[in-house]
């Protein structure tokens, strides 16, 4: 079985965000970029399937600064092949453009299953999975938290509100948007990642012309105005504890 996992980097949400001089995009110059957490789960799910049933796992990402670390980490986890996609991707790529360009490349890789993160926090034109699936002519199911492959079908657990699960069956090839792997993404030692850097070669492919149509044009970005912000208590833990005790007393909890 041939499993492809397209992944991407996103700004780390713990960072302080600011808007660039154009006023229409994030200033990413100083932002720490990390793997989209749902993509990390997609990698884990792919490796789990490989361990269970045997599969060739290929990780695919655009060639942006910092992506090598993520790709070597995936190799250390058990991915068989890693591919970087080159192209004019610094100028603010969106999911529509990426899905179109990636579809051409992925089609040639002849996947049985594509697993990708169900969303990324900076998506503004929908998530990439369903678009990619449509360009590839594959069925798509998202919000998946468990996958089993049996013959030419996958049995998946789709999440609904309130903890309800829909067990669905889908014919392969198919694309699944992963919400959570069946187990947390595994940890790999830095030493193992370093070893991969010496032994694994990253294949590079060229993305075709990027066509952004279908994605919105941003007039402006801004940080949310905080009308009624929280009443801030002390930054000192002991003082804050005292204040909280009083609040709990006022609310009748203590």
């Amino acid at each position, binding site marked *: 079985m041939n499993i492809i996992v397209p992944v991407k980097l996103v700004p780390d949400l713990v960072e302080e965000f600011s808007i660039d001089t154009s006023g229409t995009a994030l200033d990413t110059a100083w932002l720490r970029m990390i793997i989209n957490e749902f993509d990390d789960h997609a990698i884990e799910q792919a490796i789990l399937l490989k361990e269970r049933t045997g599969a060739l796992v290929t990780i695919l990402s655009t060639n942006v600064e910092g992506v090598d670390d993520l790709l070597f980490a995936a190799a250390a986890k058990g991915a068989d092949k890693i591919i970087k996609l080159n192209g004019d991707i610094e100028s603010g790529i969106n999911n529509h453009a990426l899905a179109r360009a990636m579809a051409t490349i992925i089609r040639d890789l002849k996947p049985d299953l594509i697993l990708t993160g169900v969303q990324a926090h*900076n998506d503004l034109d929908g998530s990439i999975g*369903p678009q990619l699936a449509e360009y590839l002519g594959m069925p798509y199911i*998202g919000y998946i938290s468990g996958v089993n492959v049996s013959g030419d079908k996958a049995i998946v657990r789709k999440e609904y*509100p309130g*903890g309800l699960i829909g067990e669905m069956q889908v014919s392969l090839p198919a694309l699944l948007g992963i919400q959570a792997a069946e187990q947390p993404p595994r940890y790999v030692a830095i030493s193992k990642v370093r070893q991969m850097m010496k032994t694994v070669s990253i294949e590079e492919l060229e993305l075709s012309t990027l066509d952004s149509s279908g994605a919105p044009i941003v007039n402006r970005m801004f*940080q*949310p105005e905080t009308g009624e912000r929280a009443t801030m208590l002390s930054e000192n833990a002991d003082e*804050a504890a005292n204040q909280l005790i009083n609040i709990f007393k006022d609310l009748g909890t203590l």
Partner: protein
Amino acid sequence: MNQDIFVAIEHLRGKVSDISYIMLAAARVLAQTTGGKVVAILLGKDAQSLASKFNADTVLYVDHPLLLDFNPEDYQKTLTGIIDEYRPRAVFFGQTTIGMDIVGGISARLGLPLVSSVRTIEADSKLISQICGGKIMAECDLPATTALITLVPGGYKPEQGQSTQSPPVTTIPVQQLDDLRIKLNQYIEPETGDVDISKESLLIAVGRGIQTQDNISLAEELAQAIGGVVCASRPVVDQGWLPTSRLVGKSGSTVKPKIYLAIGISGAPEHVEAITGSDVIIAINTDPAAPIFNIAKYGTTADLFDLVPALTEQIRNIKG
């Protein structure tokens, strides 16, 4: 293209989802600027009665046994056909486990623009999206052709999308729904036997800031001391540190306690939408820019690893 605003209604096991009413409310706002009608699209099997409270000018209803339950493939096929035929000014989808499964495919298939994470509609049909875990807002114009919009909760109340007068329902023909590649086998009910956090009045919620599984005990000790129950945001449950029955958020439970103490939770929209019914939200987070402080009544940037044990100890002293 006409000026009408369509809403792709979502329902699950016989109940209309709140997001459907929130979409109807947003659609009404947008329809007032375009001058069109609000049209609800309802797919189902013997489900006309679900439309009774829609604040819509009209309802287009499709009836088919395969539409009894949500299946991304037959929903997408059916809605693609309807949107292609009617070409409304805009179509709302929920930014949900249902809407997000199908809207991207429709955008790709019909070549229609898609704006996601929209929270409010402002003057001149400006769409305001909320991204980056609630830390950034983006303003876009309503795209020039039939626009697909996914809506997050928070901008409008479900009541605004409800009406005491039932709208007229027109049944329209079904697309071909053969050769489906996706099939719903069964629903698996949520785990039971654990506490029902949606009914608890004092919740101690932990998020990514708790850092390790061992640290969950800090929250458990506090909960035990004060008489509350521990719950969590998505990252904690995905790590397997707490069971899914304790998950608060989009695919977990919606809660409405008297006190919601959020420890190390940033306040991403998927989490916030499930806690806005709380009487009092108190947030502990070292990041002063964390969006949780925008909805909390009280907040502190004190380090949780100092504050939570101190708080537990004080409560124990008071309670003896």
